[in-house]
């Protein structure tokens, strides 16, 4: 087969948490494993809460990250504070690791732009989540170009789903990343579904990672449900990019256990059997089994962790609900650095409209 390209595929743990071969040395650090595990659990509990908040009308549409926690946690753990994340919309896990606050994520999906105004300094240059598919891959190349022009040892990390790899923006991004050997890492979360379109009819190439080969740089696959494998490969990829060895495309094989968004109903297009099978491979249980087998995790620690995380999530929900609504002028005052004097009349009209609707005469 002419289009067959042999690329590395990495997996350390079997779906039931059994070690399949030798682990890299870093995996001896049980504190690190515990941190990774904790972050996956926190992400999952937060994600469940976000879906529940949508179901009860307290936030708008939300894109669940269920089943893909390992990828985001790996990316977030490996990135340096000075790196820049250019995420897509299913990236709650990475965003939390970058220091984006849970209440900010809730504000965003709850219809408030303050949710993309990250308070955490480490996330200050991170992009807000990107909704138009794959466009963020080009922004990442622009960020990486800035790093390269200034001679900085920083990495732009961008994420997307399998569907995004079909778009021209993604392919143009790979092309320029290869042409200029940019310090950018493309993390493709191949969760098998682009809303209702399965991976097998999304693209004729056997792997998505091999798209990097056509652009002249390294691509590889990793089991995206294996926390240890993703962490290892993300680490190598960022290291490589940081040291001027060019971009990397990392295709993480996972499964979207939830609906595309809360506005979607995945039972319309995929079988319960398939989803049931996918649950057997999910990342949280897998790492937990491994840690239990290693004797570094037990039921008591599990319960304490869940209780701690639930407390953090609840506090975030409280903060979110206490945030109130922005003032009417907020929707106009950030459009330009300074609202043009020639459009002053429109601003006045907006404030008058707001006053009429609230019955508040203070804007008159």
């Amino acid at each position, binding site marked *: 087969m002419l289009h067959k390209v042999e690329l590395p595929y990495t997996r350390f743990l079997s779906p039931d948490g059994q070690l399949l071969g030798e682990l890299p040395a870093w995996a001896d650090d049980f504190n690190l494993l515990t941190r990774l595990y904790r972050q996956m659990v926190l992400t999952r509990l937060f994600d469940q809460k976000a879906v529940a908040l949508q179901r009860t009308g307290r936030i708008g549409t939300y894109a669940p990250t269920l089943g893909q926690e390992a990828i985001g946690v790996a990316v977030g753990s490996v990135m340096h504070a000075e790196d820049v994340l250019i995420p897509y919309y299913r990236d709650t896990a990475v965003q939390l690791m970058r220091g984006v606050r849970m209440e900010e994520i809730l504000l965003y999906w709850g219809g408030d732009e303050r949710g993309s105004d990250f308070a955490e300094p480490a996330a200050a240059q991170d992009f807000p989540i990107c909704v138009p598919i794959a466009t963020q891959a080009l*922004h990442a190349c622009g960020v990486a170009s800035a790093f390269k022009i200034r001679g900085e040892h920083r990495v732009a990390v961008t994420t997307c789903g399998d569907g995004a790899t079909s778009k021209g923006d993604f392919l143009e991004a790979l092309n320029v990343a290869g042409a200029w050997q940019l310090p950018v890492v493309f993390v493709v979360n191949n969760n098998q579904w682009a809303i209702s379109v399965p991976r097998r009819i999304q693209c004729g190439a056997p792997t998505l990672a091999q798209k990097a080969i056509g652009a002249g740089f390294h691509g590889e696959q990793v089991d995206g449900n294996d926390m240890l494998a993703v962490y290892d490969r993300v680490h190598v990829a960022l290291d490589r990019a940081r040291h001027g060895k060019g971009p990397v495309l990392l295709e993480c094989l996972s499964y979207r256990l939830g609906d595309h968004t809360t506005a979607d109903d995945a039972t319309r297009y995929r079988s319960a059997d398939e989803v049931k099978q996918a649950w057997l491979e999910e990342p949280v249980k897998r790492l937990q089994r491994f840690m239990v087998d290693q004797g570094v995790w037990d039921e008591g620690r599990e319960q304490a962790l869940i209780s701690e995380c639930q407390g953090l999530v609840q506090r975030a929900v409280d903060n979110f609900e206490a945030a109130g609504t922005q003032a009417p002028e907020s929707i106009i005052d950030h459009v330009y650095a300074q609202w043009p004097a020639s459009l002053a009349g429109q601003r006045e009209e907006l404030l008058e409209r707001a006053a009429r609707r609230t019955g508040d005469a203070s804007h008159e």
Partner: protein
Amino acid sequence: MSNGKVTLLEAVNLALHRAMSEDENVIVLGEDVGVNGGVFRATQGLRDSFGFKRVIDSPLAETMLGGLVVGMAAQGLKPVVEIQFMGFIYAAMEHLVSHASRMRNRTRGRITCPMVMRTPMGAGIRAPEHHSESTEALFAHIPGLRVVIPSSPARAYGLLLAAIDDPDPVVFLEPTRLYRMNPQPLLDDGKRLPLDSCFTLREGSDITLISWGASVMETLQAATALAERGVSAEVIDVASIKPLDLDTMEASVRKTGRCVIVHEAPRSCGVGAEIAASLYERVLLELQAPIQRVTAPDIPPPLYRLESLYMPNVEDILQACDNVLHFA
């Protein structure tokens, strides 16, 4: 440059040199802008003066350019990106509409996009297909963007410098028909001209002629012809297509009571429609005649044998002026 006079094209080049020497964050990128100095030579000499890291020959991919500058600008660079012709800018449109123009608002000012997208526009140079459009209205409709069209060397120089300074994204459209026409004296002193402002090129009291881009030339010629007939025409170069300086236009039309708008773009939903509607809202009862528009018809720019039919000429403008001047 001859006798201290520069063309509009040379003025663009001078402004780019000036901006790059004033601020090391200014970078120039695009297709053929480096070694070749751009297909029109607007970026000539920049590569030699500022090096390959700041004057970048890009792969041939306009969507990529549109996205790349968003990332660069977010990182504090001030990219000035050239799209080779306006007919090829549409591939970059999504990044203008969905990202560059919205990033500041989406992040409450945390991330901004100070960038300039330059591109040659307009018909009249016997160019191949897709090299003659005037689609400024598409960009003027996007909140968060500025759209600027210079119509003289001095305005090209001063407005491009101001556009590069501006903290928000600017689409800067350069009329190719004027690129090498009418060289004028220009002092390379770094002086900026104001954005968001019209330029009154000729004062008059009987009729207001409003135009922008290459059509300003014919509009000025029409004003001269009117003067010979004893009609005093005020000529306004809109220059800033978004946002529009309606106050200046309103004041002029209040004074003259008559108005003709001239643009090379097709009529329907053209910027002339926005100006006319705004003027009616403001000065309806002071108008002595309905506002007239002289534009291209709603057709694609024809191939060059008939392109002169597409562009308004002096006679067309005078005809519209006659209608307005002799209305009741």
